[in-house]
Every structure is written in C-alpha cells, then in structure tokens.
C-alpha cells in the first residue's frame, strides 16, 4: 500500500513514515505542503492520502478541494489528520471522498491497521 503524507511538520512526517513503513509495511511518500502534495499525488498515485488540516499557505480543506478538482487525483481516498478535537466541516466533505478524521497523536503500532480498516469499511469515527 502506498501512502502519501501531506503535513507541514517534519518530525511528524518522519515518525509517521517510520511507523507506517517499519511497523506497517507500507510504502510512504511525504509532502511538506499542500502544493507539494498536489504534485506528488498526481505523480505517485498513492492508495490513500493522509492530509493534515492546518498548514500554512494552502490548508487541508483547500488542498482537498484541489485534489478533487484534479481528475488525476480526484479518486484517491483522503484521511484527514489533525490535533484538533473537532472538525465540523468533515460532514460536508465526507461525501466527496474524505473517509475519516484521525487525531494526533496516533497509535504507532496500530496506525497502519487503522488506515487499512478505514479503507476497507469506507468511513469511521474519530479516535
């Protein structure tokens, strides 16, 4: 499984990468901004995108809409990732291919399993 992590924090990207890669056996691609994420999504065609909400310049929601606009990336399922307790806008975005919202910190051991489950069942609650 190829995962694209779009998050402006380097530490997070590192740790998440390592957890998903080493513990989850996933193939991880990183993008440090929304803009970069769009490009990498188109180029790498991942199975799922982990999208951070709060990023400078292009935030998660905008990145999501742009992904949807681009026919190359519009079908890729997106899981939002955030520290925030609440993400009310998620309900609107659910229909458009946003599968779930996961909170940070994640459970390193189960992270990949969670992602697989989400992909399988199509939607799930916050953790």
């Amino acid at each position, binding site marked *: 499984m190829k995962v694209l992590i779009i998050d402006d*924090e380097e*530490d*997070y990207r*590192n*740790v*998440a990468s*390592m*957890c998903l890669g*080493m*513990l989850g056996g996933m193939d991880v691609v990183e993008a440090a901004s929304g803009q970069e994420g769009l490009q990498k999504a188109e180029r790498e065609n991942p199975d799922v995108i982990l999208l951070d909400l*709060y990023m400078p310049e292009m935030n998660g929601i905008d990145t999501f809409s742009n992904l949807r606009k681009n026919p190359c990336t519009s079908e890729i399922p997106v899981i939002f990732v955030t*520290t*925030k*307790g*609440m993400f009310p806008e998620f309900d609107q975005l659910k229909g458009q291919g946003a599968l779930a919202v996961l*909170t*940070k*910190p*994640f459970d*390193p*051991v189960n992270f990949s399993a969670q992602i697989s489950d989400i992909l399988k069942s199509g939607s799930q*609650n*916050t*953790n």
Partner: protein
Amino acid sequence: MRPRLKLVHKGIILVTVPLVLNLAFLAILSWLLNQSEIEVKRQVRSKEIIAQANSLSKLFYDAGVAMGGYSITKSPLFADRYDKIVREIPESLEQLKGMVGDNKHQQDILHNLAQITERGLQLLGEAKAAIDENQVDVAQYQARHMYKEIRGLADQLQQELKGLTDEEKKVQDESPESKSRWQRGVKVFIIVGVGVNVLLAFIGFFFFIAGISRGLNVLTDNADRLARGDKLNLPIAGGDEVAVVDNAFHTMAEALAEASRKERAVIENAADVICSVDADGKFVAVSPASEATFGYKPDELMGRRFIELIIPEDVNGTIKAVRAIRSQRGTMPFENRVKRKDSTSVNILWSAFWSESERSLFCVAHDITERKLAEEAIKASERRIRTVIENMMVALVIITRDGRIESVNPQAERIFGYRSDEMVGRHVVMLFQESKKFSDSDEGADHEKFMENLFTISLYKIGEFDCMKRTGEDFPVELSLTEFQGPEGTRFMANILDVSERREVERLKKEFVATVSHELRTPLTSIRGSLTLLNVGALGALPEKAKQVVAMAERNTLRLITLINDILDIEKLESGKLDMVFDTVPIRNVIERSMEAVKSFAEQNGIRLEAGGAESMVHADGDRLVQVIVNLVSNAVKFSPKGETVRIAVEESPNWIEVKVIDRGRGIPAKYKNLLFQRFQQVEASDSRKKGGTGLGLAICKGIIEQHGGSIGVDSEEGHGSTFWFRIPPVNAGSRVLETNLEQKTA
C-alpha cells in the same frame, strides 16, 4: 279597674253631666213654670168662673126682676129684656160649663145649675106665657107660686153658685200662700240647683284638668328625668291620650336606653380609643380601649391634658391640626406619636370633630403603628427592589403579549444604548437583529411571528438571540421570559443578559484550548511515535535496561496524551460540543470491543473479566460507549484485589438498556458517592499516584451518557464492592436520544 276613658270621653262627660243637669234643671224649671202658669190660669179661670157665676146669677136675678116687672107692667120692655136674658142664660151656662172643665164636683154643680136653670126658665116661661095670654090671675097665681119656686130655685142657684165660687174663693185664698210657698220653693230650687250645677261643673272640670295636668306633669317630669338619666315615673294608667303619650314616651325612653346601651357597647368594645376632650384640652371621657392602646386606664386620663400624651416633636403639628379642626368645624385626620405609660411610643391616627354646642372635641384614635411599620417595610423593600432593578447586571424589559415595551430598567438602557423613553411604547422587536429583515408592508404579521418565536424559545427557558444596539451593532444575548400579572393585566418580564463578553471569553478559551492542544499534541505525536518505534525494536534491539527506560517513557507519554484527551473532552462536554456520531449499534458489539480494549490491562493486574450476553440495539455513539465501559472496567480492575473477577452485565427492559460493571473491590464510602462523577474527584488522593488516573474519567463518562439521554450512577457499600451502572434508551418504542444539538446548552 278604672274604666279606660279617653280625653274625649272625659271631656264629653265633663260637658254632658252639667248639661244634663242643666237640662234636668231646665225641665224642672219649666215644669214649675208650667205649674205656676197653670196656677195662674187656674186663678184666672176661677176668677172668671166666679165672674161668670156671678153674671149668671145676675142674669137670673135680672130675669126674675124682668119677669116681675113684666108681670106688673106688662111692658114690652120688660118682655124684651126678659127674652134677651133668657137667651143669654144658656149661653152663659155653656160658657160656665166650658170654664169648669174636668172638675167633677164643679161639673156636678153645673149640672145642677143647668137643671135649675132649666126649671127656672121653664117656670118663667110659663109665667111669661101666662102674662102674654093675659091670664093675670093665672099669672099672679103662678107668679106667687112661681115666685116661691123661683125664689127657691134662685136660692138653690145661689147655693150652687156659692158652692162654685166658694171653691174658687178657697183657691183664691189659698193662692197667695201657695204662691209664696211656690215662689220660695222655686227660689230655693233655683239656688240649690244652680249651686249644685256650678259645683258639679267645677268638680268635673277640676278632675278633668287635674287629671290632664297630672298626666302632663308626669310627662314633663319624665322628660326631665330622661334628660338627667334618672329612672322614669311609673306609667300612667288609663287609656286616654295622655296615657297613650306617656306610654309612647316610655317606649321611646326604652329605645333610647337601648340605643345608648348599644352605643356604649360600641364605644367600650371598639379597638380604637374613643374619647372627648374639653375646650381646655383635658380628657372628659375615655373609652376602655385606652388601656390597650396608650397603656393608661380611662380614669388615669380623666382631667389630664391630652397634649401631655403626645411626643414633644409632634406637639406643634397636633396643636395646628386641632386648631384647624376647631375653626373649620370639619373632621380632618391627623397623625402623631403618643407616649404610652410604659414610655414606648405608638403611631396614632386621630379623627376628631369639634362640637361647638358641647364645647368638646370628639376623637377616635386609631393605632397605626403596625401600618406605619408595614409602610416603612414596604418603602424599604421598594427602595431595595428599585436599587436592585437599577443596578442589576441583567437588563429587564417588560412587555405586553403583543410585544409593546412597557418599561425598562437602567441596565437595559445601557446595553441597548437607548433612553427608556425611546424604548417604551415601541415594539420589542426593535431590539432584535431580526427586525432588520422585516418589511414595512406586513409589519403586523412579522411582529406576530416574531413574538411567537420569542415565546416558544424563551418562555420559562433561556433562549439565545442576536440583539441590536441603537447603533445597529449586533450582540448576542441570553433571554428568558416570565409571565406575571401586572395591575393592568398579563405582562411578560424579559431578563436579558448581554453575553458578548462571555461569548468572547468562550471563543478565546476554545481557541486557546485548540491552540494548546495542537501545540501539546504535535510534539507528543513525535515523541510517542519515536518511543514506540524504539520499544518494538524497529530501530534495532535495545539493551534490557534501555528497553525498560523507553517503556517507562512511553507509558508516561501515554499518560500525558490521555490527560490532554480528557481535558479536551471535558471542555467539549462543558461547552456542549462533545462530538458524537450516533448510529444504531448492537450493545453486544460495544461490550465486545470494550472487553478487547481492556483485556491486557486486566490480565496484567490478575483480574478476570466476565461479560453477559445482550441482544438489544441502541442508538448511540459506539466508540463513546466503549470509552465509558473501558473507563468503568479499568476503574474496577484498578480497585479490585488480585484474583478477583470483574463482571459486565446487561439488563434489558422496555425503557432502558442497563449496563453494569460489578467488582469486588473495597467499595465506596457513602459520602463520596455523590462526588464521584464530578471533575477531579478520587476517593483517596493517594489513588491518583498509585493507580493512575486524572479523576476526569467518570465526569467524562457522565457527560457521554447524558448526551445519550441516559443516566449513570453507582451502587456501593464500603467493603463489599461496587456496581457502576449506566442506562441508555433502547432504539425501539419512540426512544429519542438527545442529539448533540450544538446550539443547546447542557444542564
């Protein structure tokens, strides 16, 4: 019993008795008069009889003479004369007859006379005849014969006549005597009669008048006695008008006495003091109520000046008031304070009336101390209320059912920026941002709809609205309406609280929490990830010691993460925004997941887990329920001794699904049971260090269950374990769980 005679009767008697006597007297007098008349007539008659008798006798004599003459002379003169006389004699006899009347004796005499006369006349007739026929001898013979007879007859006649006249003469002789006797008798009679009459009249009059005047005296005396207040004389007996008046007088006196008694009773029993004060200001009469009101018995006040009782400060006012009453002759109430016998003072309301005729001031003193106190209390209370209303932080707007503003308090003026006169009379919608949307055309309907909405949301509840200041600026409020009855009808009081600050604070807090959580969670993500990677050996095997240390770091990291999650959850709960996603979930599923999550933790602590079966479906956020059950079971495991069992039981009933977590731990003392579900509560402070936990868990569980429309609690006895339970509505039979209505406040 004396006859009941009216005055009329008495008057009649008074008049008729003398009258009758007079009449009798008159009758007798007239009889006497009659008698004397008869007497006189008799006298006259007897004189006439005598005269007549004499006349007859003369006639007879003359007849004899005439005859003699004729017989001698044979002159026709004598014959004529004789004829004449002969004719006259019967006439005279008749007359005499008539005069004699009923007297029997005299009638007899007359009869004799008639006979004699007849014989005589006969004889004389014979003689005359003889003479006429010139039978002188015969005549002479007869004459001598006749003469003897005639002489005899004449003597008889004379005899008889004498008899007649003697009788009459007797009468005549009697009469002066009897007459004078009569006269004397009559005189005496008259004198006596008149005297008696007058006497009787006087006596009658005297009694009559005396009777009346006695009666009148009694009446007059009674009137005096009544005025003095003495007992009346005995009632006058009798049925006449005076007695009737006397009776009426007695009745009136009774009625007066009764009225007086009633008046006395009123005065003596009245709670107010009724008194009168003379022209010098001294008490002349005081009712018994003075003891209760002033502390003085009535006799203690008699003769004292009434001004002495008044408190010095009020004396001038009292004097002025009394002067005014005296000059204007009306009653005008005035108030003052009176010093009682025990030196306490009472507030008195005086009603006084000045009577010029009695030269007294009649007063009623009413104790208004309590009323004054009540008035003071009311005034004080009003002042307090006004102070409250004017200073309170909540704006008050009073409106009618249609929404007309009747009054506002100063805080309302402040928060809306209007003066009260700019708001009163206008429709309350002017204060709401809604009004911006209204059209001018259908104001009535708009207003009606607005009011309906207002009542629905905020009548006896707290509703949230956007209000508008005078400047047009919007600001959020919390508003609640209550209904009350004003003097003019049903009114509504709107309590309006400007919550803009609070909202701002909340917003800031949310932002802060969000920011902090973000800032805390971000590094923790990396830390946790790193530590876990280390711990599981993904970055290479670690020495044993290092493993332990990393494990410890990981544990503590987890603790931090849990703490932050709990804090955030609590914040969300308290702002009503705990995110939950409801679905129809089988309770069995929830239980299984919970068991799974807690399994290793229980194993580590040597506790066995048991769970009962369950078939029901619930309308719930499954993950959150798992969170609750995990919390409860973790607690149960923490506080159970090693080797014990923690059981999860499910009870299904039509109204509730109840989940119970039963442990055999040390139990919870009664005094803590109510505190458990509050924030940061733990039964023993040392617990937090030994067993771990922030004390937020149960509070969060409570919040979650209550968001499900359920309830949570604990049954426990110290030393005998605990049963933590929660109930949520099942998904059938119209159970509706409170959706997380993000705009509604939780309790």
